């Protein structure tokens, strides 16, 4: 379970870079009590597991997608209440096969976030308990938030 210990941003940073020396890259932009990083899609689940179980990030407040035209991105916001730190993880995914491991088993709140990201962007979360359309009717064949979706724009 999560340790009830408060960490500073620097401590979290060093612990993560220790465990994932190549897979996780920290971004140069800084904000108080915020942490920005990009992760490989293969190591995302392990990173999330470590952040939850060792660093005490107890809430997943956001999962969404971004369409960068040449690639898709999945964005996660994880918060630790004891350390009062919010970490943003960005995972690059190939546009033709945007698959990433689901973190819904770790944080129950990620369940609907991931379903919505699937509904809007078509990102496939492997291991999600019920990856179906959430906001749109089940028989829709397109993902409206993708840049190349032209439904209703003609």
């Amino acid at each position, binding site marked *: 379970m999560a340790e009830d210990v408060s960490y500073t941003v620097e401590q979290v940073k060093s612990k993560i870079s220790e465990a994932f020396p190549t897979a996780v890259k920290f971004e140069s932009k800084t904000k108080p009590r915020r942490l920005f990083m990009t992760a490989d899609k293969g190591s995302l689940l392990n990173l999330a597991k470590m952040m939850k179980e060792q660093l005490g990030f107890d809430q997943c407040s956001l999962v969404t997608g971004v369409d960068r035209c040449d690639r898709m991105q999945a964005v996660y916001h994880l918060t630790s209440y004891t350390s009062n730190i919010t970490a943003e993880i960005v995972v690059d995914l190939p546009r033709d096969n945007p698959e990433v491991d689901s973190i819904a088993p770790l944080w129950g709140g990620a369940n609907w976030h991931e379903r919505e990201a699937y509904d809007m962007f078509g990102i496939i979360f492997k291991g999600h308990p019920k990856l179906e359309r959430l906001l749109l009717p089940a028989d829709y064949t397109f993902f409206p938030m993708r840049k190349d*979706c032209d439904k209703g724009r003609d």
Partner: protein
Amino acid sequence: MDLSAYPNAIAMSAKEFVAWSTNVMDDIVRATGVKKALDKTMDPLLNWGVRNSMYPLHFGIACCALEMAACSGPRYDNERLGLVFRSSPRQCDVLLVNGWVTKKLRPSLRRLYEEMPEPKWTIAMGECAISGGPWYDSYNVVQGVDTFIPVDVYIPGCPPRPEALIDGFLKLHQKIKKSKIGAFMED
């Protein structure tokens, strides 16, 4: 008056007897002028009763629902007009659609409309319910409630003020007043 079947009434099936006796009663009531008298007295009375106890379905979708709520608050007090919001379609006679109807909501709304007993009316409140409003040509918003439910009164506005909502119901009053809802038999 068709009394030719009268001697054979004993040999009729129940269904035939009901049809025959209904016809006979109908003819008698018409011929003696009782129907006219009944309609003249009862139609205005029933019509008045229906008009002044309209139960809209308590079904708010979007921003217009806040105007609906304000309308039932103390400042506008729609209960003085007999408008009482009910939360079950089985006891409602007005479907007040306020807000955008997404394509996912459409089957449920149609079902609610079909669950309401006759006679029933529909009011489309606000731009979204009338024509899709700001969601023009959208991929997930229905372009007007009248594409799948017959609408009696349109209340324009985005959102319409509670006065406009009350005015819409008064327009519906006028429509019901002309509809001969209290007449007992077809002419």
